[in-house]
């Protein structure tokens, strides 16, 4: 179980540019929860994920994973349990290394990267099998530099790398936003498949409300660094995009037209 308790994060504290990005987020995630997160620009969605991963420090509050308080753990240590896929397809993989070398690094996530052989013979067969699942023909290109791949291929590879060693939490921050619609769809199906097969606990940020309703078993709406809606199960299934909009007006009573909120 993952518990977020009263998480507060301020940027530029004490200066005129002070921004309260997260103002006391409390969230209990059960094992196997697949939560979609929506909210307008600047709502704090990325900040929440960055705070969980440890790439952004927090002001106060606690992050507890399986009874262990990881709030003070550095990012590299947290990545033993938390893996992520970024919006930028270039961020999750290393372009100057080959596909098999990237996979080998991911295959050691949370273990020591010592003086043993980087890519073992025995691993290559496993890598091939795992790549074949993606259906992108990457299994015959183990030695190719990742820099040669397309954004969609890189994102699929990043997903594979993030789930090779089963994480306790998978963080996805608009990971299909930079892809063309067809590729985005492929990567999304892969996401669903991996989460389902491994019963992963996942948090997925999206700007597509339809998608947020279709995927996962729970939906959270953030606004101004707060959770303003948290629905799951049947309640979520019964919802339509209009309901989400209505909910939003009810809670906030504010203009809710944001350039990136898609009503598709």
């Amino acid at each position, binding site marked *: 179980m993952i518990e977020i308790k009263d998480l507060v994060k301020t940027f530029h504290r004490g200066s005129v540019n002070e921004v309260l990005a997260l103002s006391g987020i409390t969230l209990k995630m059960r094992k196997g929860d697949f939560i979609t997160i929506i909210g307008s620009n600047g709502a704090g969605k990325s900040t929440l994920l960055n705070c969980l991963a440890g790439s952004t420090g927090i002001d106060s509050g606690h992050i507890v994973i399986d009874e262990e308080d990881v709030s003070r753990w550095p990012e*590299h240590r947290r990545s033993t349990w938390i893996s992520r896929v970024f919006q930028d397809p270039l961020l999750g993989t*290393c372009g100057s*290394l080959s596909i098999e070398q990237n996979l080998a690094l*991911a295959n050691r996530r949370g*273990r020591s*990267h010592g003086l*043993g052989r980087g890519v073992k013979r025995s691993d290559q067969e496993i890598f091939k099998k795992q790549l074949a699942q993606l259906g992108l023909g990457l299994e015959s290109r183990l030695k190719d530099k990742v820099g040669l791949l397309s954004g969609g291929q890189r994102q699929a590879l990043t997903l594979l*790398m993030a789930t090779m060693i089963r994480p306790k939490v998978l963080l996805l921050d608009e990971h299909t936003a930079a892809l063309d619609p067809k590729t985005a769809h492929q990567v999304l199906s892969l996401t669903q498949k991996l989460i389902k097969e491994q019963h992963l606990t996942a948090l997925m940020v999206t700007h597509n409300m339809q998608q947020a309703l279709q995927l996962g078993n729970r939906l959270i709406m953030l606004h101004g660094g707060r959770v303003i809606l948290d629905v799951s199960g049947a309640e979520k299934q019964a919802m339509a995009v209009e309901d989400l909009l209505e909910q939003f007006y009810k809670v906030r009573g504010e203009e809710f037209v944001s350039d990136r909120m898609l009503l598709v």
Partner: protein
Amino acid sequence: MGALEQGFAYGFLVLGVYLTFRVLDFPDLTVDGSLPLGAAVSAVAISAGVDPFVSLLLALAAGFCAGMVTGILNTKFGILHLLASILTMIALYSINLRIMGRPNMTLLGKPTVLDPVTSSGISMFNAAPLLFGVFSILALLLLFWLLHTAFGLAMQATGANRQMITSQGVNTDNVIILTVGLSNGLAAVSGALLCQSQGAADVNMGVGTIVAGLASVIVGETLFGCQSVGRALLAALLGSVIYRLAIALALSLKLGQFSFTPSDLNLLTALLVVAALTLPGLRRKVLRR
């Protein structure tokens, strides 16, 4: 002193510079101090009766520590890499003087790593290029192996994509500290070999080391390419030899009354690096028109 001999002796340094500049993307000027550090440690050790080969290991260790200091200043204290390395370099000047107790030290009549080679009948003239060549190729093979270990992959990723490798659970601080350490250890070995073959160590022998090292890396890359790690390592080592040959050639040039002196080398090298760094960009601009 032969260009080949110098090229291989400086080869260690150049391989180290390749590690920091190219693999880690960490501009490290510490080598200007760690090369004479290696020379000083080796000279003092040999004078105290230590075996010359063991003195190389001592130099390696000393250089490693110096590099680690730079790495720690950068990662743990948050000092900009360039500044961190300048601080260590400056500090090493004083430390090198302390180690030797004076600005320079001769090794005349003392044993060196070349003795076993010359005593086997190979002439003094051939001994140094041969031995240093073998040593630097061994170093190259070791680095080739290292860069293909899991640590080596993490090292490459640290230079190329820090976010990615952190997300894979690697503490990049440690990788940086160890890699900059290794690079300076190699620079110190260069210093130790040079002092043994030249017969003296001097606190000022490090001036311009980084520029020469960088020039060698760039010359190698330009001539031999860097498509793979193995190729890039080989290019760096060959670049070192070719750079020394080019310097020797420049020094032997006579243009009427004018000829270059060894004191002009730093200027020439700096110009060479500027040219190598800007020419590819210029060429692209010209081709686009």
